[in-house]
């Protein structure tokens, strides 16, 4: 075996934090190596050391895309690398594809790929745009990519943008590619395409390291997996000889209960009734088309579907962010169709939004301030028009403690938290409202396995206390295991309400594609409070091993 990368005893300290503690990582040439760990385990820091964005406090970095030469005792013959900047890493053949793409939106694909290394003509007076375009076309053909060099980044989808990032690295002669959470923003189909691309690249002799917190992806795409926990390397295993359970235990540091028992639901009266709601999206196209359902007290009502089939618009209509064209929305028997956000919140509607950074938090506020968002007008926080900051602070501390938000500092800016911790804080804040109805849109998106388990438990707990939960998620396993009844949306319509216990994955797949399979185990429709047949009354299990079934992420 020849190593392409060896990180030798890397320690990286930040003021007050040890992000990497004596981590050694060795990656074989021409393989895919997954770096697995929960949020904040130090994966990205380690890779930033490899990419020259951080200088390690201690330790040595060895890189050679053609394989590191070893001396007689198995030590590395080459001198360690010193990367002062990404430029040095690029020169050494390391390319990094960041989680948040480093692309310039108004520029074209070819302009982005060649940025910083533009081919020139006329003695440097102009960029040779034809040469740039050709280079891009050549590269994409060689690795089986399909990108239009003249498309503007702002006009192409995330899957294409990711390819552009990969091409950018290849254009700079990268032999070792580092991908930071590459599947986070992709649809399942795009994830498959990406894995094919990775296989193509390793066949061509490239070495790939990818960072992930999803077990299934590490298992299916990588040859070897290294697990990081709290900044330490807790083990490197070959994917051929390991299991999900082993990896999960390595990641979390304790045995993870992948299956939990959920007692049957005992639904009561409808808490949230949606009747004939029709809504348009931003482009004025009908996105929600005459949707009706009711969520009863003490039940989880799930909505499944491929992203972009009207779920977002439906949730916005329900929560009052978007005026529906037609239809009626009732909360605990009161018409709230025209009620404002504040009125709905007061009436007992809690909302975990789809986009935590856009809708859930004010990124430049600290956790204390974020914790009171949505309740700032009401007792006990507001008194005579001014906020009782002691109470607000206490409230935020409570949420942080209960939901294990890290760092446990109410004074920390929301933006300084990792995505998973931001999500935990939002979920905690919304649960603390003691809602009549919880509208949870992708509540575990981008959240690690330990926190996912926790959030799922809380959702079921809320249900058992007799509250209504509307759960929208593109993770099929999540909606199936948590919901008591499951609606499938396709092109803005609810095509079926099924019993999640009895329905098969195949049938769901067909429904999500707009077809109606035979023998569908339909669940009773409850509209306008006229009652319905309760279902899902058998004891069943809730699976938490769906962390890799995410369709999209932040």
């Amino acid at each position, binding site marked *: 075996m020849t190593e392409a990368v060896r990180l030798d005893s890397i320690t990286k300290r930040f003021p007050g934090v040890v992000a990497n503690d004596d981590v050694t990582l060795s990656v074989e040439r021409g393989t895919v190596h997954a770096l697995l760990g929960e949020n904040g385990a130090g994966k990205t820091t380690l890779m930033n050391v490899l990419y020259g*964005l951080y200088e390690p406090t201690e330790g040595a970095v060895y890189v050679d895309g053609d394989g590191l030469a070893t001396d007689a005792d198995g030590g590395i013959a080459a001198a360690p690398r010193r990367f002062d900047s990404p430029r040095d890493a690029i020169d050494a053949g390391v390319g990094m594809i960041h989680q948040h793409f*480093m692309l*310039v939106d108004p520029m074209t694909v070819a*302009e982005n790929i060649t*940025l910083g290394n533009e081919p020139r003509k006329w003695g440097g007076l102009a960029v040779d745009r034809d040469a740039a375009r050709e280079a891009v076309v050549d590269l994409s053909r060689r690795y089986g990519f399909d990108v*239009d060099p003249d*498309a503007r980044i702002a*006009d192409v989808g995330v899957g294409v943008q990711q390819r552009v990032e990969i091409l950018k690295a290849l254009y700079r002669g990268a032999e070792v590619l580092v991908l930071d959470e590459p599947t986070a923003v992709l649809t399942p189909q795009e994830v498959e395409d990406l894995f094919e691309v990775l296989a193509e690249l390793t066949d061509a002799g490239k070495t790939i390291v990818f960072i992930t917190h999803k077990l299934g992806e590490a298992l299916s795409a990588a040859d070897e997996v290294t697990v990081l926990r709290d900044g330490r390397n807790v083990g490197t295993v070959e994917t051929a000889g390991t299991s999900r359970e082993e990896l999960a235990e390595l990641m979390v540091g304790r045995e993870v209960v992948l299956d939990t028992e959920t007692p049957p639901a005992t639904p009561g009266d409808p808490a949230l009734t949606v009747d004939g709601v029709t809504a348009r999206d931003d482009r004025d196209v009908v996105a929600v088309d005459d949707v009706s359902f009711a969520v009863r007290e003490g039940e989880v009502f799930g909505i499944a579907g491929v992203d972009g089939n009207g779920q977002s618009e439906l949730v916005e209509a329900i929560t009052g962010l978007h005026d529906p064209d037609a239809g009626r929305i009732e909360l605990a028997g009161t018409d709230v169709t025209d009620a404002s956000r504040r009125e709905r919140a007061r009436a007992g509607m809690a909302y975990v939004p789809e986009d935590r950074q856009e809708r859930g938090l004010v990124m430049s506020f600290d956790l204390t301030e974020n914790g009171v968002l949505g309740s700032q007008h009401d007792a006990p926080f507001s008194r005579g028009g001014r906020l009782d900051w002691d109470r607000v602070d206490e409230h935020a501390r409570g949420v942080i403690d209960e939901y294990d938000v890290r760092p446990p500092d109410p004074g920390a800016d929301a933006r300084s938290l990792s995505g998973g911790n931001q999500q935990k804080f939002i979920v905690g804040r919304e649960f603390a409202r003691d809602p009549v109805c919880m509208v949870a849109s992708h509540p575990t998106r981008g959240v690690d396995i330990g926190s996912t388990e926790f959030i799922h438990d809380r959702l079921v707990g809320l249900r058992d206390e007799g509250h209504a939960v509307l759960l929208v998620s593109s993770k099929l396993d999540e909606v199936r295991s948590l919901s008591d009844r499951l609606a499938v949306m396709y092109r803005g319509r609810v095509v079926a309400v099924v019993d999640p216990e009895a329905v098969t994955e195949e049938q769901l797949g067909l429904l999500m594609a707009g077809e109606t399979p035979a023998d569908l185990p339909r669940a009773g429709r409850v509209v306008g409070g006229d009652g319905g047949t309760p279902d899902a009354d058998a004891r069943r299990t809730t699976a938490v091993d769906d962390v890799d079934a995410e369709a999209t992420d932040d």
Partner: protein
Amino acid sequence: MSAASRLRERVDGLGTRATVALGAAALLAVALAGAVAAGAGDVVAAVLGLLFQRSTLSAALRLSVPIAFAALGGIFAEKAGVINIGLEGLLIVSAFGGVYGTHVTGSVWLGLLGGVVAAVLLALLFAVVCIEFRADQIIAGLAIWLIALGLAPFASKVVFGSKNSATVGTVPGLRGLVANSGLPFVATVGGDALDALAGIPFFGALFDASPMVYLMFLAVGASWWTLNRTAFGRRVRASGENPRALDTAGVDVSRVRYAAVLLSGVLAGVGGAALSLSLGQFIGNGPTMVNGKGFIAIVTYLLGNYNPVGALLSTLLFAGLDALQLTLQGQDVLAVPRPLVRTIPYVSVVVVLALFGRTRLPEAAGEHYESGEE
């Protein structure tokens, strides 16, 4: 896709220009309608007559020079992510620097160079404060203006004994340059040709302007090319849109930003020196002879959506209205107090901005960038 996106890019660019033209037309229409409604047909005729006088175009071109150069400078700085609100200050110091340089060396051209040097030095200060010391760009820009506003008249007082400088030479006209070119053929034939062309009604003014006017047109073209066709221009744009992308591509963002801000100093310097050297004197009273042209430059490049050509067209619109306003004051056609007449260009700019100002700011404009920070 590719053809479509390219076409749209074209149309976008055209949209900007069309917007400016449309704005001007709309204003004119409103003004005309208003005048006609007031039953003042002969006044309208008089104003139109003035608008299409050769001297109006001539004045518009002259007034455009400092604004257009400052606007080009502003485009480079802001496209790179540094909002240079200190353009006014750069114009002031270079206006003085130009006159002082000419006074010392006796050559207008060396004087022009002196103006550029003065502006570049001040721009360097601005760049260091903003890029090195992470100062707020707006505050630093205002400081640059205030420094220049105090410094230039003070220097004039030290050198010339008065806030207004002594009179020095002016930049010769194109006709003069040709006549004194020292080449007999050029002097006679070229001179005759220019005389003939200058005789054309209205557009004749294009052939009898200061060389700085032609330099302005040249600079607009060169700026467009630099921004859109050179590697430097791409880096400037990337630095203003997503500096992290540029950094991870291995380009030093600070260097790009320094270069862009210094370039804005060079361009504004040419503009300021051209302003004072067209008069042959630096006037340092009150808001100085620059009198808000740097701020108007910011408006024109915003109106032109950071496109040098768009900025030039909106500059010409503004300068044209300014020229018209000057003539109106002189001729007393409108029965309106002069201070109100003087506001015509500013009011029009506000109206045009409100009606058609759909500007897309560079994503990272005004934000400090530090490599290695998350």
